[in-house]
C-alpha cells in the first residue's frame, strides 16, 4: 500500500483544518471504534458554500480526503456539492489504495450530512 504524492501533500498540509465558529451546517460521521471520525463544517450564503472546515481523527487517507473535500466544495452551489461522490474525491487525490476507499466514502457522507444539517436548520426539505 502506498499513498499518492497528492494524498501525502493533503495529509501533511491539510487545507481548512480546524473548528469553525458558528457553522451553518455540521456533518459528523464515523465512530471511534472504527478509528475514523470526521467532522465537517460549512458556511452557506445564497445556496453556496462559502467556507468549509474539518476536524478528523483517522489515518492518512481520512485526513487527506477530509482536506480535499473541503477544498472541492468551497464556492459550490449546494446542489452541485451534493453531486460530489466519494470516487470524485479519491480521483482528485490521485487515487487511493483499495482498502482506503472507505475513507473517501466517509468524506462524501460528512459533506451530505453537513448539507442536510444546514437544510434542517433552515427548515428546507
Amino acid at each position, binding site marked *: 500500500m502506498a499513498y499518492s504524492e497528492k494524498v501525502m501533500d493533503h495529509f501533511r498540509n491539510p487545507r481548512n483544518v*480546524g473548528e469553525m465558529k458558528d457553522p451553518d451546517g455540521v456533518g459528523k460521521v464515523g465512530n471511534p471504534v472504527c478509528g475514523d471520525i470526521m467532522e465537517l463544517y460549512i458556511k452557506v450564503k445564497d445556496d453556496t458554500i462559502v467556507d468549509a472546515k474539518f476536524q478528523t481523527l483517522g489515518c492518512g487517507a481520512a485526513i487527506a480526503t477530509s482536506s480535499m473535500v473541503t477544498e472541492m466544495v468551497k464556492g459550490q452551489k449546494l446542489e452541485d456539492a451534493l453531486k460530489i461522490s466519494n470516487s470524485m474525491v479519491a480521483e482528485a487525490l490521485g487515487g487511493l489504495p483499495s482498502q482506503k476507499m472507505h475513507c473517501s466514502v466517509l468524506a462524501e457522507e460528512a459533506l451530505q450530512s453537513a448539507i442536510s444539517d444546514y437544510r434542517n436548520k433552515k427548515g428546507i426539505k
Partner: protein
Amino acid sequence: MGRIYLDNNATTPVRPEVAEALAGMLKGCYGNPSTLYCIGQEAHVEMEHARDVMAGILGCNREEVIFTSGGTESDNIAVLGVARANRKKGNHIITTKIEHHAVLNPCKALEKEGFSVTYLPVDKYGMVDPADVERSITSGTVLISIMHANNEVGTIQPIAEIGKMARAHKITFHTDAVQSFGKLSVNVNELGVDLLSASSHKIYGPKGVGLLYVRKGTKILPIMFGGHQERSLRPGTENVPGVVGFGKAAELMAAEGPAEEARLLKLRERLWEGIKANVPHVKLNGHPTMRLAGTLNVIFEYVEGESIILSLDEHGICAASGSACTSDALEPSHVLAAMGVPPEKSHGALRMSFGRENTEQDVDKVLEALPKVVEKLRSFSPIYKDFLKQQQTA
C-alpha cells in the same frame, strides 16, 4: 540520510558480517548440497555448520533442527503437522488469543478440518495464566502452541512452566520463538518444548529462511512434499546461502549475549520516560518487566496510529502501528483487544522496536519529533476537541 529505524520487530537490516557471509556463499559455494561432487559437498558442510550453531543455541541435536523458509512456515509445519499427524489420538488444540497470525490462521484452518481449538485469554499485560492452560487440557488435546514473546507488545510468556505441564500430560508443546530467538534463552529442555519456531530476518539475518526445532520422536507430518531434504519435513533445494547467513546471524547474537539486550532496555526506557514526560494522555501496552528489551508499545489517545507513522516518517523515523503483516489490514490489533484495550484506544497504538543500530541520539531525536507530531494530529482531532471542552466545563 539519517533514518531512525524503530521497527526491528517487523524486520531487521542484515548486518554487515552476515551480508559478507552470504555474498561469499553466492560467489563460491553454489552447489546443491544433496549432490556428491565436491562443490555440492562444500555447500553441505557450510549448511551443517549452521545447523550445529543452531543446535548449540537450542541445546538440542543437529538432527532436530529443520531449516525452513521463515517463521510463518515453521509455525505452519508445527501446528498443521502435529495436529494432522495426531488426528487419531485427538482433535483438540490449545493456543492463545495473542499468537501471531502464522499460528492463529493455521488453527482456524484446522477448525475447518474438524479440530476444536481453545484460544486462551491473557491478562491486561498480555500474559497467559498457566492455570488456564492446565484447565483447558482434555483427553483429546494433541497440541499446545503458545508464543514465547509477543511481537506487538513484547510480553514474555511463562513457557517453562507450561512446558512442565505439557510434559506431565504428554502433550506436544510448540512455542513460536520468532521474537525471542537470539534474544532470550531458548534452550528447548529448559523451556520444555517439543517444537520451536525461529526466523532469520528478525535477528539481522536474511529474509526467506527460518528454522523449526522438532524434538526427536515427535509425531509430525509435512505440509509440502517433494525431495528428501530436511528429513523430508521440508523438501526443496535448500537455501544454502540463506541458511549460512541465518547461522552467522545467530552465532553473532549468541556471542553478544545479554549485553545488547541490556543496551536496548536502556534505550527503550529512555524513550518511554521521555514520552511520559512530554506527551500527555499516553499508556504503555505490555508487561512492565516480563517484556522484550527492545519493544515499546504506547497508546497515544485521541489520535490514530497510521497518521502518527506517516508523520514520523517525514522526520525520518520508522515505526509501526500493529503487527507489520496486518498493517495492510484495518482491524484493530487482536493482541490489544485480548488485553482488554477497547478499539477506540487501540487505534492510537504505536510500536517502537529497537535494534542494534539504534543509539541514544535516535531516542532523543524521536523525543523531539514525537510530541510535535502527536500535538499536531490532536489539533485536528474532533474527539480531542470534545475532551478538552469537557475538561473546561468540568
